[in-house]
């Protein structure tokens, strides 16, 4: 089910992207960057620097005021809402800081949902979900409800959900921000495993230690603008 590699190698490409809300300075100003296939890139910056805005634009959850956003070879800034939703379901997996699981669905149903929305067959989707739950080490909780799980377990469910359609790109917004240290380390290790298997990953964080531990490259945002050149982090 894994998608084919993107010709030219860039999974993400932003050119001159600006995002302005109703009043005040732009949340993002003339940002240009790219992420190659198989990379792990950390997006860092203080609160209000535009990190989440950047993630939302890459995920197609929001639209830029100016500039272009290309993900997996497709211009997503010009897509309609239906096309964006389809695109997200198939090409982008999102992991949120506060998990954003649906409390009235079981763990398994939460993981299945993106596959069902993307039109996958029931059998295929269930097999994939079971595979991911086992890989995340939480298959024994598949009939439980999220409220009964620990933070780390919930984040594993969220990661499994994000991967069910084998997207080219995995976006993680502060994936360890709501976890204790031990759980955070486990999640970080999990993300590193995924990247080692070829998953392209963009990680938004304000934690330099997290960025240093898991990302090969860091992009810094300050007041909506890129600050300094990309840094290669030694392995």
């Amino acid at each position, binding site marked *: 089910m894994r998608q084919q590699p993107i010709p030219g190698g860039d999974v993400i490409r932003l050119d001159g992207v600006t995002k302005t809300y109703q009043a005040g300075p732009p949340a993002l100003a003339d940002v240009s960057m790219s992420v190659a296939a198989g990379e792990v890139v950390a997006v860092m910056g203080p609160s209000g620097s535009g990190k989440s805005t950047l993630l*939302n634009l890459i*995920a*197609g*959850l*929001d*639209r830029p005021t100016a500039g272009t956003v290309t993900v997996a070879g497709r211009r997503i800034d010009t897509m309609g*809402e*239906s096309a964006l*939703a*389809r695109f*997200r*379901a*198939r090409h982008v997996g*999102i992991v*949120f800081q506060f998990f*954003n*699981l*649906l*409390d*009235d*669905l*079981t763990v398994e*149903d939460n993981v299945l*949902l*993106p596959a*069902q*929305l*993307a039109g996958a067959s*029931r059998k295929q989707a269930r097999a994939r979900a079971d595979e991911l739950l086992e890989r995340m080490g939480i298959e024994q909780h598949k009939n439980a*409800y999220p*409220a009964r799980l620990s933070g780390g377990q919930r984040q594993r469910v969220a990661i499994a*959900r994000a991967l069910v*359609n084998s997207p080219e790109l995995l976006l993680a917004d502060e994936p360890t921000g709501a976890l204790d240290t031990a759980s955070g380390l486990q999640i970080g290790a999990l993300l590193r495993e995924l990247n080692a298997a070829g998953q392209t990953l963009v990680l938004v964080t304000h934690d330099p230690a997290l960025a240093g531990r898991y990302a090969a490259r860091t992009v810094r945002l300050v007041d909506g603008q890129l600050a300094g050149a990309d840094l290669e982090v030694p392995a």
Partner: protein
Amino acid sequence: MSWFSPIRTATGGPLRHKMQAVVIAMVLLVSTASATLGFALLAASNTPFTHAFSAQRGADVTVTVNAARASSAQLAATRALGGVTAAAGPFAEATVQAQSGGQPFGQLVLAGRASPGGAVDDVVLNAGHWPDAPGQVVLDASPGPAQDGQGDGPSQGGEPKLGSTLSVTGVPGAPALTVVGFANSITNTADGWVTPGEVARLRAAGTPSSAQLLYRFAQAGDPAQVRADVAEINRALPPGAVAGAGSWLAAEDAATGNGAIMDPFVVAFALIGLVMAVLIVGNVVSGAVVAGYHRIGVLKSIGLTPAQVVVAYLSRVGAPALVGCLTGVVLGNLLAISVLAKSSAAYRVGSQQAPWWGSVAALAGMLALTALAALGPALRAGRLSAAEAIAAGRAPRAGRGYAAYRLANRLRLPRPIGLGLAAPFARPARTLVSLAAIAFGATAVIFAFGLHSSLSRAAASQNLTTTVPVQLQPFGPGAGPQQFPDAAQDAAVTAALRAQPGTRHDVAVYEDQVKLPGIAQGVNAQAFGGDASWVDYGIIAGHWYDAAGQVDVNTDFLTQSGLAVGDTATVVIGTDPVTVRIAGEVFQPSRQPMLFGSVQTLPGLATAANLQEYYVGLRAGTSASAYIRAVNARLGSRSPWAATGPDGGQFYQIASALIGLLALMVAIAAGLGVLNTVLMTTRDRVHDLGIFKALGMRPGQMLTMVVCWIAGPAVIAAVIAAPAAVALNTATIGAMAGTAHTGIPASFTQVFPPSRLALLSLAALVIAAAGALLPAGWAARARPATALRAE
């Protein structure tokens, strides 16, 4: 800083939460308007004739005098008689035969009055102006008392409108009268009014000049007192001066007969509207407060006292509620103008106004309801700690609806549909309220359709509009007062009918009063000079007579005589007793007993003087209007006979219009209730909706899911509404029949064949979809990032 300053700040102003304020205002507007209208209708149906008679200073007795037999002084002296409390007149009057649009319009009694007002019989002008020049006439807007139970009075040809011209036949010059207005005399003292000077030229040559005097008496409460009053007038005038007298009791009888019939369905709709208004307002307002719990908790955490929090939220709900209620009262009164105009016509009173107390009650009631609905949750929020209020304001308690989601998943429905159908179980109380609102709305719609069908069948049956599209009556251009058709003219009718290729059936109808032991008043007997089975009177019990010696009767006959279908009776025709057997009971609502048979069974009835009309049935495909024109052309301008269409029955038309309006209002209120529920749920779950979007749910899928939130309750509501509406229709028609002192054929309530009922039940889904589409659209269009940021 004052105690209220932080409240003003915390409230954020009325524009801060526009959507919620608009929904609250709209719901209160529709509910208050419904309540105002409901109270107005209930008041209007409460002894309308009595109120109108008092307001219009109705005439207890209308005396017609031969002006040649009594001098003006003698007439004026009657005002001073001991029992007379007020008098008006004498007003010259003329009885004319009129045509409208070339078609016979009927016999009219026209009185000459300089103005509509007066100490007695204050005529209410409903349209146009009072005659102020020759050649003008104001017509009585409400038809005269029902004649022998046949509909609402004769309607000969097209109904005139303002500006129409009536031609008076049988007088030199055939004067024309332009209709300049419509008015109502509570006791129908005349069919129309002209200027006093006009009357003389409207009298046919040789007819005595007559005038009418109108009296109110100290004692006129029952027939005996009225007879005594008339006798007093008679004694005060020269012999032969009094040509006739009409009593207010007959007018009351006719008015309350038809009007009382409306009471059951008016009350039914008024109650449905009021109960639903209470339900929806309660749900909307309490929901608005509960939705603000999280914010209430935040406000408390920054220092607002519980009392300040309660006041802040009551004012936030109260401001749009007050706007909605005030606007609703205005709208309700505006709607009442049109509705009460119709009901006043049905009740045969001049005019009805919405009572002031109805507006006050609706306003106060809705505001009190709003306060009650808001106070409970607001007080609870005030008592909660900040942390508890914040927690209570979040998504529904965990554990609700889980089984529904699992079941939906197992059913293998498309995911958005399954998610939507399962969602209502997470908020059972809110779901129940929505279900109830939809059920009420759907019940009202289905009931309205059924009632309309039932009343249409009753109208067609009573007025024979379907089976007898053409009637010939002796109100033709050659007719005149005290003139009857002769044998040759009668024979010409038969020849004219036989000459028309469109004639399928025709039968002569003879009518006269007969006597039956046990019934104090006369029995109105109709004898048919041929096969009349095709006329298809509505059969309540038994069957139409099909053998000699058999008759059919109406319900009043059986009630007054104590007889039943199958019994024999001795009818006295003139002085001859005739034994008949009651074959069936027919639907002909009337306060007078009626009997139907053949001329063979009722010998002595079939005389020229008793020949009342001809019923004509047409071949399929024959145009009734073309047929009428052809027959009238064949009969010619000198014939006393004229063909006309049947009277559709104004009462039934008015009732149908009222039913439609009331059902529409109830359905709109139900739709608003659904709108509010889906809106509240969308707000509750906006973060979840953002998650769905982030995971790839398309706008169309989102819309489907949100609409499905209400689809399940709507289906259940339909299942409840269908039998409820059927039962309500049966009960209401039964109550209306009971008020009209008549039985009804079973077919009047069998108006819901399964296919039709199933189709009408879709009203529940239509109401639900109409209410859900707007918020569903908003949810579908919302940006995922915006939804995810919301909590």
